[in-house]
């Protein structure tokens, strides 16, 4: 794991940039615990500073209601990340379990699960989310919003994990393991998990992208706990108090910019990981940098790396296995 991250840092520009951004975000989240006053509280800024543009004392400006935008943003970023983490944990959890069951068991179980997945995929997710959010409105908390987003975001991930398992099952090294009498559990844990875990990592990161987007969208429509801070609710209130029209754009700019920076950070990290997973890119690196071979063979077996490469080379790559329908809400 550590070597993987070290390699990523060394060879992937986007991973380096992305993790720098995420480190910065993490720092902001940690700062939020040291806020001098509850950030959602109004009238904490002295009257003469209310509604001021960014200054040395108030880094991101203040609202007309007497809130400090910087501390609001720090708390908002934290809460948005909490919602996204819950959603990702639940969505990917269901996705991994179903995908692996479907892929390994095959047969009837696979067919039943796949037909359920297919039916869930065609149900328009965003209207459904809005519908449930409206029904729960008032009772919505961060936790329930996170759960809600997670429950509706497992179908595509489960398909991807299934595809991953199916392709692993057909690899030569699996056949070798089976013929040499290795038991199934051992094959799954020792041979397949090392491939699935990095894949999962990239998938989890893109899950964050989706969940942050949905949180911002639902909150903008007023479907979140509007009394607490998140990036989405900040945008909602900035819009509700028409900060742009009132000539106080910094109230809107802060959460909008923060959400852009955050998703770009997550995306860059996920690009870095997928590039790392992509054998074609890796081959290019190996031919350039001889040391890479040693580095990779310590995290995977070198024979497996070689097998992986030839396998992937033979099969036509389809980046569109990420179904285009996903784009609608992401």
């Amino acid at each position, binding site marked *: 794991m550590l070597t993987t991250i070290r390699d990523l840092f060394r060879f992937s520009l*986007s991973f380096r940039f992305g993790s720098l951004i995420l480190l910065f975000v993490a720092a902001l989240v940690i700062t939020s615990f040291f806020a001098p006053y509850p950030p959602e509280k109004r009238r904490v800024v002295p009257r003469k500073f209310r509604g001021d543009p960014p200054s040395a004392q108030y880094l991101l400006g203040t609202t007309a209601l007497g809130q400090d935008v910087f501390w609001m943003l720090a708390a908002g970023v934290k809460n948005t990340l909490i919602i996204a983490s819950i959603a990702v944990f639940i969505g990917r959890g269901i996705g991994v379990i179903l995908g692996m069951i479907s892929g390994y068991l095959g047969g009837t179980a696979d067919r039943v699960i796949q*037909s359920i997945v*297919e*039916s869930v995929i*065609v*149900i*328009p997710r*965003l*209207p*459904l989310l*809005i*519908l*449930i959010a*409206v*029904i729960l409105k008032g009772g919505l908390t961060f936790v329930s919003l996170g759960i809600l987003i997670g429950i509706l975001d497992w179908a595509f991930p489960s398909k991807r994990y299934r595809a991953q398992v199916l392709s692993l099952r057909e690899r030569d090294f699996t056949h070798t393991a089976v013929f040499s009498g290795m038991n199934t559990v051992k094959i799954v844990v020792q041979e397949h998990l090392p491939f699935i875990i990095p894949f999962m990592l990239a998938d989890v990161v893109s899950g964050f*992208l989706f969940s*942050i*987007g*949905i949180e*911002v*969208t639902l909150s*903008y*429509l007023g479907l979140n706990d509007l009394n607490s801070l998140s990036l989405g609710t900040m*945008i909602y209130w900035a819009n509700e108090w028409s900060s*742009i*029209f009132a000539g106080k*754009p910094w109230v*809107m700019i802060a959460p*909008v910019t923060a*959400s*852009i920076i955050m*998703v*770009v950070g*997550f*995306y*860059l990290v996920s*690009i870095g990981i997928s590039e790392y997973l992509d054998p*074609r890119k890796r081959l290019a690196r190996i031919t350039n940098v001889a040391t890479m071979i040693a580095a990779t063979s310590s995290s995977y077996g070198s024979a497996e790396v070689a097998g992986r490469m030839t396998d992937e080379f033979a099969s*036509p*790559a*389809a*980046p*569109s296995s990420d*179904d*285009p*329908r996903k*784009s*609608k*809400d992401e």
Partner: protein
Amino acid sequence: MGGMQLLRTYILPRIAQWAVVIFVGVTLTFLIPRFSPINPIDDMISRMTAFQTIDPEAVVRMRANMEDLYGLGGTLLEQYLAFWKRLLQGDLGPSFQNFPTPVAEIIGAGIPWTVGLLTTATILSWLLGIFVGSLVGYNQHRRWAQALERVVIVIYPMPYLIIALVLLVVFAFYWPLFPMVGGAQGTPALTWDYISSIFRFGFLPALSIVIGGFAFRFIIAKALATTEISSDYVQYAELAAVPKRRIVTSYVIRNTMLPHVNDLALSLGAMFEGALITEVMFGYPGVGSKLFTAISVSDYNVIMGITLLSIVGIATGSLIVDLLYPVFDPRVRLR
């Protein structure tokens, strides 16, 4: 593989799957609104009795009448069966909110706006994304290609809402080139004023969809093109000094067309979901904004009508793709 066998082993099971998917989807959309704690009939009766006292017996009878009218009477199973019966006759029932306007009429009013906007924007972003993406994939070591890719990498992960919000603030408020809300200006007629206003009002919503869709398709097209250029026939074409433009269009793009066609059919199928956020943000009078209003006032029939339309749209889109696959791709035929 013979035609009959293809029909039996591929086409018929696929059509059966389509039917199952629609059945499950319809059932779910029937059930979910009924778990809502807001009862539209209670809502309406309380609105009626707010300003006058009505004989309780009349209220009971009124409730029975309304339940009958809205298909909310009887047990859940009876409602469900009645729902299917009406559905198969093409009757979506009346709207709760704008009684007695039929749901079909409400949806029908939104469809031209949504279809017009989304078809244009989707096809534009599709063409642009494939062309630019393949070009960048083919020239990936050039400076301009790398610069362009960096720009797209920043745009792609942005939540769509943010793109729309930024466009709205910049081009409708700070630099008011375009109107903020609405679909058109004036009375509908075949006049220059009315038609040009459709374009003026539709520009920003369309632009926001084109930007988002372009970034997504650019990334797919670039990835596909990158794998394609290392193939033997492209390298042969390069050695044979085939003009670069022809390599990109008739070699790279042509051979990566299959996933793109797939994507286009699915996107167009998903159209009736309405570009919900787009329409809400820009106050555009399409299906999406109608759905949003219906959801916030629990107008079941309208919600179900639109959800149904979009389920049928998406399921049919992917059915068409799967049925066309054997035509385009000989590998599917042989399997």
